[in-house]
């Protein structure tokens, strides 16, 4: 028990330390040690408690509750003032209403409610804890190296590194609290802390754009928090409980469904689903470690984590149907939109939203197989996407641009970076990797749930996904010789190590997924449903394992081709075909007036066909309509 408390509080300690220590060397050392110790603590906790799980109840939690309440009031006061200062009155209103609700609830109704288990570590929270702990600490180490290079590139940005690092650690602590708590008030508290941290991280550079986007993220997430607070109040006053595990085992009556619906809305804002997705795209102005932390591995996962938790009450209920369709709209819309941007981080952002949409779809269908797929997707997405974010961040430092078009020289500039990016991309959509296995299972469970529309949407979304990753992969593989090109900056060791580890984790995960399935996901599903799920790709399927190993070894052959081993005999090399008008260097040709011209090849972005504004507008409208329909159906149910 002490271990879990330590796990939650340790990052806070590090955060205080890095905030006050101004000496850079010492601070960096503390960052590294802190990150390593956090990862080790996570692993130790996992080893000790993962198998049997643990539930903790505190006899007296008044002190903790009062502390949380004070922090919440302080945050609310700050947010309300910011709202007035920036003329975002909606923000102030949201924050005001929810703090009044929570304070009233704490002081009146809550006294009669007894909470049994404050902290529950079962298989699902164990998985989340491992993701947050390991990927989170790798990102922290990466941040040390990245921020150094970042400030050399961006002289105009005021250096506030100790603040940045401190917020990152507070954020980790809040994420641990969020996934391990069972008391909804505690989850809500951590939820609000992550919202506030993301506001601070997005606004790091203090440019107008960053400030604007940070406020946007704050407005949307505080709106989600309002929905969360309303759910807590209804749950406490009408159903007299505050425990998530109790809520999920209830019969889907009217009040239960209202609570679930409100919690799902909160989850949608956190996971940036349509119509609340705009904040995540704006958040890409932040320095890369925070993008990786917020948008790949941890914060956006909090939303889908909540939906997976609530899945017993979703399925065929109103809330479940609405969530499935919103997930489907988001998946399809963002997969199409991801074709259009040139900016690598933006592609990653769209693809993150799209994948979260897929997870929301799977989780809210609520059958055993679909939940299996949802949890596996969550794991694989966290690993691959954080690898890609970190790599893109370093690429920006090294080649001075994050435009995908400029990455055609990458293979010649930095082999390590381009191979890790290739591994990340393959992890997102190619055959032997986990994302595809989960998609396979998702497909099966969608057909079983007789929902034709989402089957078809999955098919289309996957096709678009293949297109945008494929063209990026092509760009990375093109071996263009970097002529007249200067490397901006060397890669630091603090960047190399996390990227290397994450790449190894991605590779291992594609062989190790049966283990994750056997020891974590299947036991979790058995404890929820009573019977083991029927997974088409069982752990005992030897033919499939042989196939998998064969495919992985084939994929390892690709990078092998890039290593000059001398194994392959040298062949005659000729210039590329340019209709006979080559000027000799494969990059220029003789134009019609006998002038030498540069040949430039660009990828396909389809901006005319896929109108970003239109698609965003229609997806937002569709999902807003879906939410309204959900509300109307709920009211209709109450009327009956």
């Amino acid at each position, binding site marked *: 028990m002490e271990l879990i408390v330590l796990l939650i509080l340790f990052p806070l300690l590090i955060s205080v330390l890095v905030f006050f220590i101004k000496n850079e060397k010492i601070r960096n050392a503390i960052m590294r040690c802190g990150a390593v110790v956090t990862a080790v603590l996570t692993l130790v906790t996992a080893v000790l408690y993962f198998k049997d799980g643990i539930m903790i109840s505190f006899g007296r939690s008044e002190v903790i509750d009062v502390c949380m309440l004070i922090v919440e009031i302080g945050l609310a006061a700050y947010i309300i003032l910011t709202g007035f200062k920036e003329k975002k009155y909606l923000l102030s209103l949201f924050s005001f209403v929810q703090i009044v609700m929570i304070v009233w609830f704490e002081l009146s109704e809550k006294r009669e409610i007894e909470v049994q288990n404050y902290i529950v570590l079962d298989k699902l929270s164990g998985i989340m804890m491992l993701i947050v702990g390991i990927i989170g600490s790798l990102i922290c180490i990466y941040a040390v190296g990245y921020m150094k290079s970042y400030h050399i590139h961006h002289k105009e940005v005021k250096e506030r590194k100790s603040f940045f690092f401190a917020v990152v650690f507070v954020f980790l602590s809040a994420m641990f609290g969020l996934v391990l708590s069972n008391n909804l008030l505690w989850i809500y508290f951590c939820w609000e802390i992550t919202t506030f941290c993301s506001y601070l991280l997005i606004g790091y550079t203090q440019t107008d754009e960053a400030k604007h986007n940070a406020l946007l993220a704050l407005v949307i997430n505080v709106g989600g928090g309002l929905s969360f607070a309303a759910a807590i109040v209804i749950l406490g006053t009408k159903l007299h409980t505050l425990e998530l595990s109790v809520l999920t085992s209830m019969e889907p009556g009217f009040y239960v469904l209202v609570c679930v619906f409100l919690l799902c809305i909160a989850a949608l804002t956190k996971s940036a689903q349509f119509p609340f997705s705009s904040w995540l795209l704006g958040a890409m102005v932040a320095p890369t470690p925070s993008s990786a932390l917020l948008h790949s591995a941890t914060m956006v996962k909090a939303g889908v984590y909540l939906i997976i938790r609530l899945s017993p009450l979703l399925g065929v209920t109103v809330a479940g149907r609405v969530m499935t369709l919103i997930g489907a709209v988001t998946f399809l819309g963002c997969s199409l939109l991801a074709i259009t941007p040139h900016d690598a981080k933006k592609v990653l952002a769209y693809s993150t939203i799209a994948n979260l949409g897929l997870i929301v779809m799977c989780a809210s269908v609520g059958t055993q197989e679909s939940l299996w797929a949802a949890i596996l997707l969550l794991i694989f997405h966290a690993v691959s996407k954080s690898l890609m974010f970190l790599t893109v961040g370093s690429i920006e430092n090294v080649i001075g641009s994050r435009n995908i078009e400029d990455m055609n020289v990458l293979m010649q500039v930095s082999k390590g970076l381009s191979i890790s990016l290739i591994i990340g991309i393959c992890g997102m959509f190619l055959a032997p990797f986990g994302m595809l296995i989960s998609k396979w299972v998702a497909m*099966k469970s969608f*057909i079983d749930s007789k929902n034709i529309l989402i089957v*078809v949407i999955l*098919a289309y979304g996957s096709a678009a996904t293949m297109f945008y990753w494929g063209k990026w992969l*092509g760009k990375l593989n*093109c071996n263009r010789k970097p002529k007249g090109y200067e490397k901006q900056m060397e890669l630091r060791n603090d960047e190399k190590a996390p990227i290397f580890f994450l790449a190894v984790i991605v590779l291992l995960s594609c062989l190790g997924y049966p283990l994750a399935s056997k020891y974590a996901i299947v036991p979790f599903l058995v404890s929820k449903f009573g019977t083991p799920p029927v997974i088409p790709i069982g752990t005992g399927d030897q033919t499939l394992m042989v196939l998998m190993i064969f495919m992985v070894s084939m994929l390892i052959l690709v990078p092998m081709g890039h290593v000059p081993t001398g194994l392959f005999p040298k062949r005659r090399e000729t210039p*590329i*075909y340019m209709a006979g008008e080559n000027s000799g260097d494969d990059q220029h040709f003789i134009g019609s007036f006998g002038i030498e011209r540069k040949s430039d090849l660009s990828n396909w972005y389809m901006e005319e066909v896929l109108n970003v504004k239109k698609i965003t507008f229609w997806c937002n409208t569709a999902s807003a309509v879906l939410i309204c329909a959900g509300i109307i159906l709920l009211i209709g149910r109450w009327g009956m």
Partner: protein
Amino acid sequence: MSVIKVILIIILTPLAGGLLVGFDRVISARMQGRQGPPILQPFYDVLKLISKETIEVNRFHRFYVYLSLMFIILTAVVMFSGGDILLAIFILSLGAMFFTLGGYASWSPYSVVGAERELLQMMAYEPMMFIVAAGLYYVSNSFFVSDIISQSKPAIVYLPVVFVGFIYILPFKLRKSPFDLSVSEEANQEVVQGISTEYSGRALAVIEVTHWYETMIALGFVFVFFAADNKISHLIAVLMCLVVYMFEIILDNSTVRVKWQKALSSAWIVSGILGIVNLTVLSFFNF
């Protein structure tokens, strides 16, 4: 036993595919009023290509066609040994992806344009492939080809509309007009041949063999639609494969290449409408 089966699949598939392509060339020639090559011409071509010197533009871009061939062979093995049809589709698209990467790897204008178009084509036909798999799963409750073809009634009885949609996207897979944007089979469409522009000798032979496998896999899908548990239906299914292939040859010779916008949008609209209609009707009758 299973090893022999796998070896037989690996050997017989390209032989049959090559014969089909030879047959196609003869028929096409007759339609255009020519005598045409002997039916074994594709094999002569490949043998000659193998004996030629391989010239390349860089050291890497040859690997991708070999990888592509490996994965296409794997697809054929999975598919013809009665394996999981969804797995077959996934590996097939992996093979196609490596083929496009080969096009990109040369960084030559013609092959990059070909590669981009190939990606576009994949995006255009992929939804229908998934819908086909979903439909087959719907009627037989299994993704395994061996289960699907041992039902009492062939799948076509329940999925006629999906089958029409599949025929619509088949030219993409067979590299035939009107959807042969990336690499055309014949020289009448283009002089510089898309992705394969920079390949020569042995690598080009590999591309040719890959295409034979792909042709057979595409017709394998047609077979799955018509086969049921009695042996006569298997014969009918083989005949239907030939009929479909004949139809594609006629289509190839009577249409011209369409623009990419039209290829993409028409494929998506056709597969969406036909897929949803067929599957909804099926689920309405609760199969």
